[in-house]
């Protein structure tokens, strides 16, 4: 899922100077699960903004609501009636959701309530780890289901850099595992070490962000 972290209420408040009718919109999918922008966080932000504005003698009407997914038009449409009377929207969704609201409600400024961090999974309660760089050219079949593009800080796809600590941690951060130590251990368990002998060609980054704005067109799915 997409992992995000909520911006601080003072930072969100700064964006809203001069706006007096505000709608905070939570998103019911990824950001709910990672406690960044679901209904609960939308309520906290709305309440915090109301209090801070009141303390400054600039009271604002701040409401909140949550839709299932801010990245899909059918759910965004549910907001149609609610945004008419506001002069600004705070989206608690990831960057995709924030921009989708902006595209649907062009006359209303939409402000980000979260910082979108990465595609990842929870390691334990309250701790999320990046797993996929969305490079568009998956090689997980060759590296024991562990992604060196994402989990090696240098994106080394053929061999380790040689700077892991004796306990197998990355040179960059003693709390992070060296991806190549993980890959080796996984391949060993699966008895597929031979597979690591293959020299992988240099990656084609055109399929990643480096190739410009990405789009996916599926003719078979078009109506």
């Amino acid at each position: 899922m997409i992992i995000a972290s909520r911006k601080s209420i003072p930072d969100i408040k700064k964006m809203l100077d001069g706006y007096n009718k505000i709608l905070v919109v939570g998103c019911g999918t990824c950001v709910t699960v990672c406690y960044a922008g679901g209904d609960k966080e939308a309520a906290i932000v709305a309440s915090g903004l109301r209090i801070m504005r009141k303390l400054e003698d600039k009271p604002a009407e701040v409401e909140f609501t949550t839709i299932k997914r801010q990245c899909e038009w059918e759910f965004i449409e549910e907001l149609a009636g609610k945004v008419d009377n506001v002069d600004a929207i705070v989206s608690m969704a990831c960057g995709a959701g924030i921009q989708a609201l902006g595209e649907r409600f062009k006359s209303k400024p939409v402000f980000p309530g979260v910082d979108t961090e990465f595609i990842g999974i929870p390691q334990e309660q309250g701790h999320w780890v990046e797993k996929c760089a969305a490079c568009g050219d998956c090689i997980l079949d060759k590296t024991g289901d562990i992604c060196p593009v994402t989990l090696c800080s240098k994106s080394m796809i053929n061999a380790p850099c040689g700077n892991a600590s004796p306990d197998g941690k990355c040179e960059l951060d003693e709390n992070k595992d060296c991806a190549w130590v993980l890959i080796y251990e996984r391949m060993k368990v699966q008895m597929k070490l031979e597979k690591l002998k293959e020299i992988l060609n240099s990656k084609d980054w055109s399929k990643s962000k480096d190739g410009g704005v990405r789009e996916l067109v599926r003719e078979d799915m078009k109506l």
Partner: protein
Amino acid sequence: MNPVSNLAKTLTEGKLVLTTRLSFPPDVNVEDIRKKARLFKDYTAVIAGEENSTDLNISSLALAIIFKEEGIEPILQINSRDKNRIAIQKEILTAICLGVNNIFTLSGIHPYTDKNLGTKTVYDLEPINMVAVMKKIRDERKLPDGKDENLNADIFIGIEDNPLAEPINAMPLFLDKKIRAGADFILTYPIFDIQKFKNYVDKIKILCSLDEINLIATIYIANSIEDIDNLKKSYPGVSIPQSILDNIENIDISENSGIEIAFGISESLKKFNCVKGFNLLSNNNFDSMIELSKKILDSNKYS
């Protein structure tokens, strides 16, 4: 094919290779570069080093040209961290055009290891991919995109390797991969642990012939624990056994024990068929390096 450099020729003839690595901060006086480089005039080649960490040095290619002007054969260093494949290919072709034919690649220390520069990292081609690019340029005389430039590209291709890194049991496999990708010579991290190195070589034997491997083993002269700390800044993954650390801690510098320890390591390493030479490093202790190289050459003469 005639050897493209003195380094290539020395290795082909089976003679002992001696190299070192020099790098300089941006505020260095050019005369100082020339003076220091001349100390190593008798070495097979000298690595024109750039920063391994993020403390800026003058560029490897500029340094290589100064070495050449001093009659010293340079080894260009290209770091996968700072340049994308366009910049790397340009660097390779420019180096060859200027008569710098030894090129070795490494990944470099991650820019966020010691400070937050807010920079965008590159890591486009990793070192093994860079080796493959150089091999293509050299053997097929064309760029990787297939564009036939009829390139004149005599390159002696090198790559960095830490034989004693984690995952240590897989390192022989990765060395074999580097050689199959096209590396003509391998420049190792500083070696201190002979027993571990022996285990490593035993595993390599299963994968490839030791005689065909041109391993240049780095030997680091340490006269104090401070020297070791300094080494770790550039080589965080270096493996040093406690017994060596204890010896270094007890060194009386006036007795030059650092040189003796380093010489002992070189004597042990030269018994391995794959070790074709030594890359001598120190914490700016140039006199020690010269003395060590004399001892190594003397010992080589009589062995």
